[in-house]
């Protein structure tokens, strides 16, 4: 009997031992369709994270809708009407957004999602090959700069307001957060406008240095120049703005499309797109509830058509100007008939972010205002280049105001008016450029978790 028991004992012990040894490893299961931070090990992984930020650029809380729409609603002077039912957009249109606004929360979150990924990329440069390090780093800095520029403009006072070391804008987070242990790095107070702009300019200059001239539909050197020209323009540094815009124009890489209509609804970047949001059936700004096409395109084409052009807006164009007839009649999903712009009228097409036409207008205006001439054209020649393409009547002379009006005409519905008004301290309707209601609230939800954040006036 004894031997029988011994035999069993051995069998059982061996059996259980085998089971536990083989099974313990089975508990270490990593998700198969996602990757976790410790799996970011190769240049390809880091690059993929970098490309993940394009999803945030494309998202409706980025250039997929709100960077244009919310800007235009805030700077609205009977240009557009929001006729949809989304309460928060109606409030934005009435400038009655409150501190719990989902729009203010969404734009904030989307920006920092991209910024954090850019920060992660910058913290993982050691796995990127020497050949590509500058390009990857440059692109991450471009992304970070673009988002900070947009956020800073929405949630803080403009650079033109002065008080650079006391005016507060959004928090400047430059460290990556990937695990709970790093969460402290996100509890940051609001940065000054000065610090923010210094960082943005530095990042863009690094981007220009690191990015290649040709980078497919991703950001290249000229996209960084283009954004730098916007930043300098906002700062009133006209010579620098003209230089940056000129770098794009003089490169010869871009050319205006032959017709104004040709600049929009393209399947791929047009000859004048310096930077554009790409879309496809499977990756787009939205096709049912949100997205710039969904909002701006008539319901007769199957979209919501919640944003209509006011009858007043086309009156800014002179007779014969192609841009003054770039509209069609349609209706919204709730059956309200109205006028729609052709700029965003086809699904899954490129949404322009920076076009060459803007560079001409920026160089011309900056040269005019600085009194110097950067590049091989006078301000009048630059504005004429843009106006001729649209078949607008020729001008014999040009003023700063002409450039402002021309930007309204050329860049209507592209979110530019907000920035132009603020940098030049122009009233928006009856509101002064620095009115509290022209700045978004710091999201209440964010202040609940980060007590270091102060609220903007008026909220």
């Amino acid at each position: 009997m004894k031997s029988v028991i011994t035999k069993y004992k051995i069998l059982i012990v061996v059996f259980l031992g085998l089971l536990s040894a083989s099974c313990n490893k089975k508990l270490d299961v990593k998700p198969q369709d996602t990757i976790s931070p410790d799996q970011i090990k190769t240049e390809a992984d880091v690059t993929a994270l970098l490309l993940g930020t394009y999803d945030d650029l494309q998202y409706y809380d980025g250039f997929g809708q709100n960077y244009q729409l919310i800007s235009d609603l805030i700077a609205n002077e009977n240009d557009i009407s929001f006729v949809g039912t989304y309460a928060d957009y109606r409030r934005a249109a009435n400038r009655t957004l409150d501190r719990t606004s989902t729009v203010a929360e969404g734009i904030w979150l989307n920006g920092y999602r991209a910024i954090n990924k850019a920060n992660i990329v910058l913290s993982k440069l050691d796995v990127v090959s020497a050949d590509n390090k500058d390009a990857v780093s440059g692109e991450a800095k471009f992304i970070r700069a673009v988002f900070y520029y947009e956020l800073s403009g929405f949630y803080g006072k403009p650079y033109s307001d002065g008080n650079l070391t006391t005016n507060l804008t959004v928090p400047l987070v430059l460290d990556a957060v990937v695990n709970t242990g790093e969460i402290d790095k996100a509890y940051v107070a609001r940065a000054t406008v000065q610090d923010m702009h210094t960082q943005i300019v530095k990042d863009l200059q690094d981007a220009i240095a690191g990015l290649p001239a040709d980078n497919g539909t991703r950001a290249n050197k000229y996209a960084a120049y283009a954004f730098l020209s916007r930043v300098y323009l906002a700062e009133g540094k006209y010579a620098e703005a003209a230089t940056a815009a000129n770098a794009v124009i003089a490169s010869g890489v871009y050319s205006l499309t032959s017709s104004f209509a040709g600049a929009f609804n393209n399947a791929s970047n047009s000859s004048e797109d310096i930077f554009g949001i790409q879309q496809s059936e499977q990756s787009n700004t939205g096709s049912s509830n949100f997205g710039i096409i969904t909002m701006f395109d008539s319901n007769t084409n199957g979209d919501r058509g919640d944003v209509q052009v006011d009858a007043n807006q086309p009156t800014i164009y002179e007779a014969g100007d192609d841009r003054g007839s770039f509209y069609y009649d349609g209706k919204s999903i709730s059956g309200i008939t109205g006028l729609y712009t052709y700029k965003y009228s086809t699904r899954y097409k490129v949404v322009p972010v920076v076009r060459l036409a803007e560079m001409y207008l920026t160089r011309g205006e900056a040269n005019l205002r600085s009194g110097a001439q950067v590049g091989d054209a006078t301000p009048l020649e630059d504005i004429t280049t843009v106006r001729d393409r649209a078949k607008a009547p020729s001008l014999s002379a040009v003023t700063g105001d002409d450039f402002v009006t021309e930007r309204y005409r050329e860049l209507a519905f592209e979110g530019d008016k907000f920035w132009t008004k603020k940098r030049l301290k122009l009233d928006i309707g009856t509101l002064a450029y620095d009115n509290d209601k022209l700045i978004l609230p710091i999201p209440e939800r964010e202040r609940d978790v980060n007590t270091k954040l102060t609220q903007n006036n008026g909220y």
Partner: protein
Amino acid sequence: MRKVLLFATVMLLLLSHYSYSQDRMIKGIIKDAKDNSPLPGVTVKIKGTTSGTVSAADGTYQLPLPNGATTLTYSFIGYADQEIVVGNRTTIDIALGTGNKDLSEVVVVGYGTQVKRELTGSISKINASEIENFPAPSFESALQGKAAGVVIESGSGKLGQGLKIRIRGTSSIGASSQPLYVVDGIPLVSSSQSDANNEPTNPLADINPNDIESVEVLKDASAAAIYGARASNGVVLITTKRGRQGEKTQISLDLSRGFSNPTKKRGFLNARQYVDLLHEAATNDGKTGFAIGDFASEAEGIKYMTDYVDSYMDYYSLGTDWRNAKVNTNWEDQIYHKNAPSSQVNLSASGGNEKTRFFVSGFYSDQDAIIKVNRFRRYGGRLNLDHTASSHLSLGVNLAVNRSQLDRVSDDNAYSTPGQVVAQMPISPLIDSATGKLNNNTLYPSGLYDAQYNFDKQVNFHTIGSAYVNYTFFPSLSFRSEVGTDLYNLTEDEYNGKLSSDGAGIGKGTFVSTQTVSLNTNNYFTFTPNLGKSHKLTATLGMSYLQNDNKGSYLQGENYPSDAVPDLSGAATITGGSTTNVRYTFLSYFLRGNYSFMNKYLFSASVRTDGSSRFGPKNHYGWFPAVSAGWLISEEKFLKGNNVLNYLKLKASYGITGNSEIGNGRYLTQFQVTKYPLNPGYSTDRPGVLGNDSLKWEKTKQFDAGIEFGFLNNRISGEVDYYNKQTSDLLLAANIPYTSGFSTVYRNAGDMENKGVEITLNSRNIDAKDFVWTTTLNLGYNKNRVKNIGGQIFESSGGEQRAVEGQPIGTFYMAKFAGVDPANGDALYYDASGKKTNDYSAAPRMVVGQGNPDWTGGLSNAVSYKGFDLNVLFTFVSGNSIYNRAGIYQAAGFGGGFDNQTHEMLGRWQKAGDVTNIPRLSFYYGNGTAESSRWIYDGSYIRLKTVTLGYTVPKVVTSTLHIASARLYVAGYNLWTKTKYISDPEVNTGSNDNSISNIGSGIDFYTIPQAKTFTVGLNVKF
């Protein structure tokens, strides 16, 4: 860990140092408890061994009992198993019954069985007879009102939908609160695998209820802790029927046919009422408009408003004479099948000899829901096989294979769901006379119209199987090894035709495919040493491993050439597609000892350690111990033999269980693939969850104390339990600054409690030879309280309900309606100071009810007289509220649009002095239309859940027909309901997303009511 195991193994082996010796003979007679007739074919087995015998034609049996053996088990198909301690008896006569009232009845527990009288935990057992032939798609529905403390909500009258089941309350906020289901030892995947954009479906609906021998619900920690990390929500053990050794093979045929109709229709205005009330609203609005200066005169205002509504009616009546109500469409009637048919065939055979036993069955079931389109068809088969290879070795397999097809309708929140058709104007014709086809020119896109072109078909292949070997070293020591699998394969084809509203003229399709495969093995020793007369010990030691792989894909496309090719292959444009691939694993070790001293002092202790891949390497493992004790007072000298109080037991248990149903990989920061054109990348999901590698189980500490009693030889018996469940380390999503790039991080940071009482009473009122009448009452009371959630507030998807500290989970929170101002018909609300106001914005949100009931229960009466049997079950629920979320559209005096209104609106305020709760009608300015307690109703109800009348054909007749038995029955379900609610009170719309179903309950949003069903059936045994 391995050292502990080794030590325990060695101890077991040393203790089991016994050998076989002289046998003695045991004999007796087995009878049917109901009519005392002898029962042939009953399997009698020596517990712990594979040897046994079968009773002869006259019910007698005899078998040799080896010296080490202590216990005999008696089992017979259709009867409850019994387990008898032999002691020094040589004759054991026994009566087998079908009910669960017998104290020597065997109850299935985790990894073993126990006799009811020796239980120290809290377990409810439901037998086959209470589940068979129930006309609901899934067996859980048959448990409703049968087990105290088990609350089952089917939520709607749609078929195949997920059910919400709560055992002793909701014990989580962020993780699932559904129980763990285990069929024949194998844990099942019970969560919905269907298209996440529709309502959840129920994988358990694939289990044939007629295959079930018993269902045991493990409620307290002592019973459930052996399932450790998955046991906080209770465990439901399903045991399927097995073959029994018998003289002949028993073949059983069940046929039933039924038809169903809604229990209750809401009732909407007819065309004339609609026109009159809409005109009244226009008149009211005209007057209001003049009063606030919108119009120069009252007459102008009234004319303007009336013209406005008339223009709508002109349009939607398709030119018919709506002023004279020429068209009067009852849209509510249109959404239902009239007498929706269902039929079911079930054929089974069981039998075997001392070497091999089998149970084999096949079924076919076809059910039409009361709502159009919705239909559920199933067929499948089962084979359960047991083989005794030698006196040491037995082995077997269980295998069930099923296919089901569910024709689905859209979720309650879609225009295309038939439930929303009730909103259409009654003046809109059903058929457009110009085309002769269904009218699609209605106020809202018509679900009836779309139903012609759309479909959503879900097909499941579900295989649940396991194999086991049982090796008996000695009568006192055996080892069982089980390997099982749950293979669930689901495909869902959805198509919106080109002509439908959702198809947008181009046709849109979706294809979803999911395969979830669970692999499970349980390996354990059972040790029952003979320690003499006064000691009885059963010890179980083992391990378990579970691996689940879920692979899925979906594809979406549009631009179909025509509706003729509705497969995704017909889509010219693919607009989306992806795959999922998720694995989780559990590795567990468990040890349990049940010890009784002098047959009256009972002790049980168990410990389980669970490792799970759902938690990070730091927290893979958790410990889940439980202890319990019982005192059989009726075995004490001072009570023993007492004729009045024949049975009395006190028991108490305490233990810790866990909840790990939080989803996979939550401890990691996860980056998903982004599909930016030409440049795919990685990014976190939106809004973004930061990983927390210190995540661990939710933990529930449960205390249970109970008393069991029996009077007058168990004529009256019952059980009362008190429990206190304290859940801590609640898994909550905590907000973190967006500046981190993330939105939330999951933390174990909350506490919640459930306290309650459960009462079960059984009475054999009349127990004569030909006439038996029994009554069973069960009651459950549960009080939930959210104790600490870090000051956060979690809301249900609709925002009407919340989890907030100090309140029960699922509290309704909204403005409180204060009735109608008799002077002007304004809707009134309570303001912050408790005064009435007509200014909605001055009305703060407050607690106005709770979604979960205080009391639930069932009252069942069974009467049998000669060949007739009558079974009547009432179920009831009290203390909960229901919110009619659709009230803002369908009962708001047209304030939500031109939706047809419920009959409640006929009692509206009309002139100064009217005292009513229905405010003045107003479609333009609105009056009392915002979310408020105006649409909160008392959700209590009492319902005649089932009535079954059966007739068993006398043996004289059946023997001439050469059949063993035959029973005919008619049954009715949900025949009568008493409630204050305007529709069916068993209602809960929406998703089973964890946080939503934990917080949200009792919401009605165009929800399809329950079915009232009649069935006739026949059961023949050959």
